[in-house]
């Protein structure tokens, strides 16, 4: 057990995996100097430039080459810097990595972890602040993961590397400095949510950084005697229906809160599933359908916040 931040947890996790399994490699821009967020710190020194591979600024080819590596016995971890730049590699992710095994009838597997940090990166404006995780939940072949804590970033990266499928791995651009205890011996399975707070009055489902806002919202609500249960989904595909349904049965009211734009966000999928299959009353809160602006006032206007989550929760309870 050690205290480390979210970035160090990822670097430590990847290092541990590389030590255990010589097939694991990492490739992307600037990884040799530790990555721009420190999420690869020390790895090239430890494993050499042949396994921690600095690449040209060629996102499509970084991802395409990773597919070729995965098809020939390696397990690549692909650094795409932020989700916004991963858009340059969409064919390679969606048509090449995700479809490979199926198209070729199971002759091939693409074990790969595709790192594409999401979220508003404060003061970085519209092309560095998106949360597009829901796009990837739509794609058969992909596993979709979004850790909210250092422990989960350590453990989910291990699980993602072991699962053998291509994993869309969404860290958060503003969680890198978050400290927390990390126990490398504590596995974090894919597809299992974490209960972050217990409560009887309503359930808030969330993931990534919005989990922390949801917990803050629960504190706000608690001042008025409202006890919210907070579930961190951790894996968006496959999502933990069992945990969500159990909590919905207990509280009868479920709010899904996420940073991504609400329209066609993954909250819609959860809310619709609950509406179809349970008696729970559902609500969702995501960002407005607007690009993220640069000026502080513009950025703040588009942020999902604890108070906005709390307000939405009260609305749901009043229905």
């Amino acid at each position, binding site marked *: 057990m050690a205290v480390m931040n979210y970035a160090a947890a990822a670097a430590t996790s990847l290092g541990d995996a590389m030590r255990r399994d010589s097939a694991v490699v990492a490739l992307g821009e600037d990884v040799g100097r530790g990555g721009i967020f420190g999420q690869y710190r020390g790895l090239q020194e430890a494993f050499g430039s042949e396994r921690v591979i600095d690449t040209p600024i060629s996102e499509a080819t970084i991802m395409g*080459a990773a597919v070729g590596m995965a*098809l020939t016995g390696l397990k690549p971890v692909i650094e795409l810097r932020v989700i916004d730049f991963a858009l340059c590699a969409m064919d390679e992710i969606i048509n090449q990595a995700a479809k490979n095994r199926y198209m*070729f009838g199971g002759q091939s597997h693409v074990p790969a972890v595709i790192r594409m940090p999401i979220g508003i990166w404060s003061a970085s404006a519209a092309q560095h602040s998106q949360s597009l995780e829901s796009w990837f939940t739509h794609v058969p072949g992909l596993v979709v993961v979004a850790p909210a804590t250092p422990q989960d970033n350590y453990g989910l990266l291990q699980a993602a590397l072991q699962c053998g499928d291509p994993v869309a791995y969404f860290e958060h651009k503003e969680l890198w400095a978050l400290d927390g205890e990390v126990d490398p011996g504590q596995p974090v399975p894919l597809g299992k949510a974490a209960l972050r707070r217990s409560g009887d009055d309503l359930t808030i489902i969330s993931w990534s950084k919005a989990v922390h806002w949801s917990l803050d919202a629960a504190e706000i609500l608690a001042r008025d005697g409202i006890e919210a249960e907070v579930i961190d989904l951790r894996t968006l595909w496959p999502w933990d229906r069992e945990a969500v349904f159990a909590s919905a049965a207990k509280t009868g009211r479920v709010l899904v809160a996420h940073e991504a734009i609400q329209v066609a966000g993954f909250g819609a999928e959860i809310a619709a599933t609950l509406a179809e299959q349970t008696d729970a009353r559902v609500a969702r809160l995501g960002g407005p359908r607007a690009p993220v602006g640069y000026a502080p006032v513009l950025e703040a206007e588009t942020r999902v916040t604890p108070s906005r989550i709390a307000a939405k929760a009260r609305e749901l309870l009043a229905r």
Partner: protein
Amino acid sequence: MMCRIRAFEDAAEEASRGGVAAFGQQAVGQAQVRGPLHLSTGQEAVAAGVCRHLRPNDYLTSTHRGHGHTLAKGADLERMMHELFGKATGFCGGRGGSMHIADFSVGMLGANGVVAAGIPIALGAAQSIKIRRVDAIAVTFFGDGAINRGPFAESLNWAAAFNLPILFVCEDNQWSATTKTGTMSAGQGAAARARSFGIEAEVVDGNDVGAVSETARGMIADIRAGKGPRLLHARTYRFKGHVSVDPAIYRDPKELEAALKSDPLLVTAAQLRAHGVAPTEIDAVLQAARTEVARAVETAGQAPWPAASDAFSQIQDTGAGQWL
């Protein structure tokens, strides 16, 4: 090999009549090979001339027009035909069809429905060869149209930067679907672009299997010797439409007429005759290939369809597909 490819393409073409609605044609429903079928008829010398220098553990990626490459890399002809028919016994169990033909057991890492997408995959295979310290190379075939997509330029740069064991083969049939590629391409073509990245490149007559083979042999020897990437630009011609049902009314019939005179099979036959091989012997090779293909068509017709439940298998281990 060239005869086997020709026989395969001819039979697939025949079985695909009415198989897709495009280019003013209607799908009639009973075709055995359905969907877009991109034939490499007339381009056989490129696949045959390059792949004869490859070993089973060398890797290959291909394009939407990939039957010839796949056969030449050593894939089983019968299982290929079964895949075109969509049968459970095909290489991909009927999930892929013509555009996703592949035989990983001989290092053929797949045709591709996306133009230029196979290039970076072969690049990654080449880097993997280096990382794993395997004695092998990677080869990628792509069309003349593909050189206008970004992954081609990115991959040339990358291959040179990492000195990777990869052969780029531009199979230049002069057409990109209904567009004459030259009208949409600046500069002097694939070889010039490669040279601008410091990659040695050569242009050959892609209808002369001897010339392709001789050039490929030298380049592949260099690549195996660790001298880095090479690019081979083979000039050939697409005898058929873009897909099998395309009558190609957009091109001058005289252009095809002229091209048919340098049919790679005729060119090779003439060369063999000049070396004293009897015409009957040459005909026998093509006949044997047609017999082999006819058998494959027959067994493909009889082979079972995949189970409907196969729609949900081989997708992923974690969170596999289903109706919800």
